[in-house]
C-alpha cells in the first residue's frame, strides 16, 4: 500500500510542480505576478472557512463523477456520459423530493430523494450499457450524446414541469428536506460523508468481491475474461449502472444541498472533469478522493483570479485542461495497458 502510494503520489507531485512552472511562465508572459496569482488561487481554494467548504462541496461532486468514469474505465468501457447521468440524478432527486407527501418525516424524504438520484443516474447510464452489451453500439458515442439529451430533459423539467416563479429553476425543497449541514461555516453538508462511504465501498468491492475481479478481468482482456467464466455483458451493464448511480448521487448532492433546487445551469462540466479525476487517481477508487480535492481546489480557487490579479475566470478551466494535458503528455498518468 505504501509503495503504491509512493508510486502514484511522487510522479503526480512532480508533474504538478512541472505544470506549475509552465503556468508561472504563462503568467509572467501575460504581465501578472505569478506569486500573486498562485497565492490568489490558494486563497480562493482554502483562504477561509467558506472557500474550504466550497472546495469540499465541489470535491464531493467531482469524486462522484470521478467514480462514474473510474468504474467502467477499469473494464475498458468509455463512459463519458457522467455529465448527463449527473443531470438525470438531479432531476430524479428533485422530482422525488417535491412529490413526496409532507406527512413523511423529512429524514425519510431526504433519504428517498438521494436514492432516487442514484437510480436516476443508474437508469440513464444503463442506456449506453445495454446498447453496448446487446447491440454492440459504441458506448463512448452513445454516452457522450446522451449528455445533451439529459441536459435538455432537465431544462424541460425546470421550465415546464415544476418551475418556480422565475421559471429558471425548479421549486425549492423545504429546508428540512435538504441534506443536513455538518459544518455551517463552510456550508458543507452530509454528502461529504456519503461520498467517503461510497468510495470506500467501491474500493472494498474492487479488492474483495467477485464483481471487482470480473471488472478487472474484462479490462485486461475480453476473451480471456470470457474463458475464465465472466460475462462481459453483465460486466458492461453493471459497471455502467454503478458508474451512473455514482454520477446521479453527484447530481443529488448538488440539488439537495444548500440551494435545494435544480437550475438551468447546474453543472460546470463536473461530469467531464470527473474523467480527469479518475485518470489522475490512476483508476484506483481510494485515490479518487485526493484527486477530486485537487481539481475542486483548482476550480474553486480560480474564481479568485479576477478579483486578485485581474485574470478572466474562464482561464480556470484552461488551467485544469492544461494541467491534465501536461500530466498526460508526460505520461505521469495514463490508462494502464492502453497506450503501450
Amino acid at each position, binding site marked *: 500500500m505504501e509503495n503504491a502510494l509512493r508510486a502514484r503520489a511522487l*510522479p503526480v507531485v512532480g508533474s504538478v510542480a512541472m505544470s506549475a512552472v509552465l503556468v508561472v511562465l504563462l503568467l509572467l508572459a501575460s504581465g501578472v505576478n505569478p506569486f500573486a496569482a498562485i497565492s490568489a488561487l490558494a486563497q480562493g481554494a482554502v483562504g477561509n472557512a467558506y472557500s474550504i467548504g466550497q472546495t469540499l462541496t465541489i470535491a464531493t461532486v467531482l469524486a462522484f463523477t470521478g467514480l462514474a468514469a473510474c468504474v467502467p474505465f477499469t473494464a475498458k468501457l468509455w463512459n463519458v456520459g457522467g455529465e448527463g447521468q449527473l443531470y438525470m440524478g438531479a432531476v430524479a432527486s428533485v422530482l422525488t423530493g417535491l412529490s413526496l407527501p409532507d406527512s413523511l418525516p423529512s429524514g425519510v424524504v431526504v433519504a428517498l430523494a438521494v436514492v432516487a438520484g442514484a437510480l436516476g443516474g443508474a437508469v440513464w447510464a444503463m442506456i449506453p450499457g445495454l446498447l453496448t452489451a446487446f447491440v454492440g453500439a459504441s458506448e463512448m458515442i452513445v454516452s457522450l450524446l446522451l449528455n445533451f439529451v439529459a441536459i*435538455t430533459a432537465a431544462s424541460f423539467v425546470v421550465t415546464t414541469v415544476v418551475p418556480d*416563479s422565475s421559471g429558471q429553476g425548479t421549486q425549492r425543497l423545504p429546508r428540512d428536506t435538504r441534506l443536513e449541514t455538518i459544518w455551517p461555516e463552510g456550508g458543507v453538508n452530509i454528502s461529504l460523508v456519503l461520498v467517503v462511504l461510497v468510495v470506500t465501498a467501491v474500493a472494498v468491492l474492487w479488492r474483495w468481491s467477485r464483481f471487482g475481479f470480473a471488472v478487472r478481468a474484462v479490462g485486461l482482456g475480453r476473451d480471456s475474461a470470457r474463458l475464465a467464466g465472466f460475462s462481459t455483458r453483465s460486466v458492461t451493464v453493471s459497471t455502467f449502472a454503478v458508474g451512473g448511480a455514482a454520477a446521479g448521487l453527484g447530481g443529488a448532492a448538488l440539488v439537495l444541498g444548500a440551494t435545494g433546487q435544480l437550475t438551468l445551469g447546474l453543472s460546470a462540466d463536473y461530469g467531464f472533469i470527473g474523467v480527469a479525476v479518475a485518470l489522475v487517481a490512476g483508476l484506483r477508487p481510494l485515490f479518487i478522493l485526493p484527486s477530486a480535492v485537487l481539481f475542486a481546489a483548482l476550480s474553486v480557487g480560480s474564481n479568485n483570479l479576477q478579483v486578485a490579479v485581474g485574470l478572466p475566470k474562464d482561464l480556470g478551466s484552461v488551467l485544469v485542461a492544461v494541467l491534465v*494535458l501536461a500530466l498526460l503528455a508526460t505520461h505521469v498518468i495514463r490508462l494502464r495497458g492502453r497506450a503501450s
Partner: protein
Amino acid sequence: MSRTSLRPTHRRALRGTAAAAALSATLLLAACGGSSDAGSTGSSSDSAASSGSSSSGEPFKVVVLSDGAANDQSWSNSVADGLNEIDPSLDVESDFVGPLTTADEYQQQGSSYASNGFDMILITNGGQTSAAVQIAEQFPDVTVCQGPISPTEDDLASFPSNFCAWNLKQQDGTFLAGVVAGLVTQTDVIGSVAGGEFPAVVRQPEGFILGARCVNPDVTIDIQYTGSFSDVGAAQAAAQTEIAGGADVLLSAVDSAVRGLYAAAEGAPRPTFVIPSYFDSYEQAPETVLTSVLYNLNGITADLIAKGAQGELGDADGGDEQYFNYDYANLNVGELADFHGNAAITPEIEAKLAEIEGKLRDGTITVPGEDGADMPLSENGAGSTIDPASIGC
C-alpha cells in the same frame, strides 16, 4: 516502483516538457496579446478604480456578476456600462465578472469578492436567487442584490436582511417596439425569436404583439423559442422561418444570438427589420436594426450601487427597502433607441408613436404586468388575446 525505474520516467518527463512547452507557446501568444489589448478596451474596473482612489478613505467596493461578457453588446454590456455612470462623489470601486453560468460559479465568485473586502455584490441574472441568498447568508456584512425577479410576499419575508431584489418592467419597452412594428410592417405579420421559455423572456414577445395590435388590429405574430441564447444557427433558422411566413419586423429576445436575426434579415426577400433588446445595437447592423429596446440597465446598475454606497439597501433598519421595481416613471425603463434616420419611420409613424408613448407615460394605457389583468403577460399567447381596448388603446 523502485528507484531505478524512476529514472526513465524522469527522462520521459523531460521530453514531455518540450511537448508541454509547445502547448504553452500557443497559450502564451494568446495571453500576451490579451494583456496588451485589455487596456485599450477600457475595462470599467480600471476607470472606476482610479476615480475611487482619488479621494481619501476606504472606497465602497462593488462587483457585478452577470451571465454575459462586459462587451457582449447586449444585456451584460448595458449593465457594465452602468459602472461608469456611478456618481463620482461616492468613491465607488467596481469590478465586473461574466459570463457566469452555474449557481456554483456565482457562489464562488461572490465569496471570493466578499472575502477580498468587497461591500456589495450585484447579480444581474434572474435565475440565481438561491445562490444569491446563500452568499448573503454566508457574508452578513456584504449587501447582495439580485434580479430581475418578482418575489412574492413570502419570498421577501424569507430573504436575509442584507439581501435586496430588483426587477424591471420590460412590458412597456417591448410594447413600444410593438407599436413601431405594427406601424412599419407592410405585411401585417411580425415575428419574435426568443431563447428560453420562462416568464422574464415570454413577457417580451407578448408585450411586443400587444403593442402592435394597439395600433394595427390586423397584425399577427409568429413567436419561436430556440432554447438557446448562444446558438446563432438556431436563431437564424427561426428568424428565416418567420420571414418566409411573411414577418418583416422581428423582436429579439435571444440576447447575444441576435446575430442570427441580423443574418436572416440580411438575406430576406423584402426589407426586414430587427429590433434587438438591452443595448443600442444600431452600429452592429445599420441596415437591419430599426431601433433597440432599452431598459436603462446602466441606470439601474448605477442606481442600485449608489443606494448601496449610501447604505440604503436591505431592511436592517426596519424599512421595506428590499425590493426595487424599476419602470419608466422612476428610472426611464422601457424606451426605444434612436431610429438613426431610418427611412421606414415616416413623420406619421413618429407622430403616432409619440401619441401612444404619451398615453403610456400618463397612464391612459396600462400594459399588464405578470400578475395584473385577467391573463398575465408572461403566459404564452397573452399578447395575442388581450383586448387592446381593455388596456386603454
